[in-house]
């Protein structure tokens, strides 16, 4: 057990200063304004700047376009990106998909795309879900039919966040409808500039943009296939297994849950609520902080955040989503009308109406990457070893 501050070597201190210097320079007000206006989840200029330093794939050797960073420096980079609120959904999806390309793609594909991934010019998004599919990804119906050394892809994917800023999408397709659900799937890395690909924006009230991507007779080269034909489920599970694992050998510099970053807005909202409690005045001249009920609610929010930070793996995914929804609503209730004011309007709290933002944003955190119900099922079966319900369309999801 160890929670101590990591003592940085001289080189690591220099690295930290270098990162901050770069971010001071490239993470401008415009970057944040762009994100607020578009909800892209990615800032192309910042992504390219990271690429120039080898920080898109920081653990890669320098000669492959990476920066050869040790784990401590990688964590420094991650924390500073979080501190500077760099939009980095695209960074995450690119790295996730690359893990599959590396393991299942042809050598040709890896060599063709690797340098671009590293320098930031090639970015990936995820095409898992479909309209009507919900969290049951194995029910994918996007059809891919072989045509010589190409495949003809038809159908649509949903929630392909970042597609408008990416060059390729991971796309799980149905290549054999006669095989059992998990068997007839094949994975492709589909170039998004191909004829027949249409990206349609879907705006969320959490401020993020996601997309529906439509494929109409899109001709995809077989070179873009990942893994074997009809073995797409294996390709898909690869990165997900990594995502969900919490075994021994865990990197102790990492957060306990990959959703931990989603708590950040709530931490900001709590800070804003504390500032409100300290600085505002009630009609009788007293401040909210003199009020035990205010202290209790702030105490509860802070406790729940700390508890969520400490909740590991799939348990943490459930806890973080629940805490986000519940405590953001509690902070709204505590502060009252002012908490409703939108960013930029007269009287907005914090930098950008942070409590209002967090309350809207929170609603997405019980859905991303599988609903909390999917994770509750996983916990029931894998952690508690409760009997599994048998459904007509079973085999479990994810």
């Amino acid at each position: 057990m160890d929670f101590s501050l990591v003592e940085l070597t001289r080189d690591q201190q220099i690295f930290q200063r270098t990162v901050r210097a770069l971010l001071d320079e490239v993470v401008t007000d415009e970057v944040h304004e762009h994100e607020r206006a578009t909800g892209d989840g990615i800032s192309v200029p910042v992504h390219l700047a990271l690429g120039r330093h080898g920080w898109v794939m920081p653990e890669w050797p320098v000669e492959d376009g990476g920066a050869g960073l040790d784990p401590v420096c990688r964590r420094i980079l991650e924390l500073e990106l979080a501190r500077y609120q760099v939009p980095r959904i695209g960074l995450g999806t690119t790295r996730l998909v690359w893990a599959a390309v590396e393991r299942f793609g042809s050598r040709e594909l890896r060599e063709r795309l690797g340098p671009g991934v590293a320098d930031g010019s090639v970015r990936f998004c995820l095409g898992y879900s479909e309209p009507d599919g919900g969290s049951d990804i194995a029910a994918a119906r996007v059809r891919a039919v072989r045509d010589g050394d190409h495949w003809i892809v038809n159908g649509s994917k949903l929630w392909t966040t970042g597609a408008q800023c990416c060059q390729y999408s991971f796309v799980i397709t149905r290549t054999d409808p006669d095989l059992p659900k998990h068997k007839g799937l094949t994975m492709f890395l589909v170039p998004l500039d191909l004829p027949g690909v249409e990206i349609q924006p879907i705006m969320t009230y959490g401020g993020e943009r996601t997309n529906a991507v439509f494929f109409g007779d899109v001709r995809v080269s077989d070179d873009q296939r990942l893994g074997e034909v009809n073995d797409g489920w294996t390709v898909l599970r690869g990165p997900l297994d990594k995502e969900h694992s919490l075994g021994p050998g865990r990197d102790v510099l990492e957060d306990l849950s990959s959703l931990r970053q989603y708590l950040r807005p709530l931490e900001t909202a709590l800070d804003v609520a504390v500032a409100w409690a300290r600085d505002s005045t009630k009609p009788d001249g007293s401040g909210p902080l003199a009020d035990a009920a205010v202290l209790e609610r702030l105490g509860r929010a802070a406790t729940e955040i700390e508890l969520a930070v400490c909740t590991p793996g799939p348990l943490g995914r459930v806890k973080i989503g629940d805490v986000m929804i519940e405590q953001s609503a509690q902070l709204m209730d505590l502060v009252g009308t002012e908490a409703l004011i939108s960013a930029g309007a007269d009287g907005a709290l914090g930098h950008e109406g942070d409590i209002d933002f967090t309350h809207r944003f929170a609603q997405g955190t019980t859905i991303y990457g599988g609903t909390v119900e999917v994770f509750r099922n996983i916990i029931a079966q894998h952690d508690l070893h409760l009997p599994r319900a048998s459904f007509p369309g079973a085999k479990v999801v994810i």
Partner: protein
Amino acid sequence: MDRFELRSQDFSLDEDQLAVRAAFADFFAKECPPETVRGAEPRGFDADLWGRLLTLGVGSMSLPTTAGGDDATLVDLVLIAEELGRVLAPVPLISHVVATRMLERAGAPASLISAAARGDFLVTLAHAPVTGGARQLVPDAAVATHVVALLDDKLVLLSADGPGAHVSNQGCTPLAWWRPTDGHDRTVLAAGAKAGAIHTDAVAEWRLLTAAALVGMADAALRLGVEFAKTRRTLGVPIGSLQGISFPLVDIAVGVGGTRHLVWKAAWYAQHEPGSRPELPLMAFDAASRTATHGTSASAHVHGGLGFSVEADISLYFLRAKGWSLLGGSTSANLREIGSVIAGAA
């Protein structure tokens, strides 16, 4: 309160009440589809819809016949407010009616009351008593030219040439900052204890009617969730057949069913035994705020990713649950007022 006293427990609506409810349900369903709600964003005011509502007499109906009204009761008003909430109608009905009733109770000039009742001007109320020159956020003040406020020990009507500047907000309502010093015309309506009593009652009425609207909102959100859960399938079954989906929907239904009754009961008491259960409107408001907050969020969640998108109608509901329930201040403050009443420490 004797908890064993023999009271009727009749929660049924009589024919007139059923007719009022049906008429407004019909009106709102026809005149206020989701496009109307979206079209009124971000200010949250549809002047056409408001005009048509006024022609139905909503501005005057709850006034005494002596003041040109129809003696409609608070029970009628909560029935209407529930239907308004069900479609998220972007009209300042609640504030305007409550403020107009304040004018009548305070014995304002008949011409002023009837002008308000006709909707010649829009009037709202400042919830917090005004102290010093501090500004406060006033619901509907971005469309109302007139504001009723408690200034020290006086109830005052303040009017300006135009409404306040709209403050963008989560619920897309006509919220505005307001302070009484901004060169308004002033009419003193009442003073002393009477002024305070009218203001306290009006704030409670506002919370009661808003509670009713939140019940309608939560009920509509529940219906959206139920419809989605019936049709969307996973693992070969409709998701609504899984207890992980159905139980949360049931819990919304439990909240809506109880809160609706509580709102009715509070309205009945306020109408027929004013002062005997002053905590009931506040309780109704507390329950409705939580039912709407929880219900819209849980129903959006049942919708999966779709429920997080602005194109889904459920999004309109989610954003207004807090957007409406926090207009009058913090729900914490309301809760401690209940505590004060029931502890006899008010």
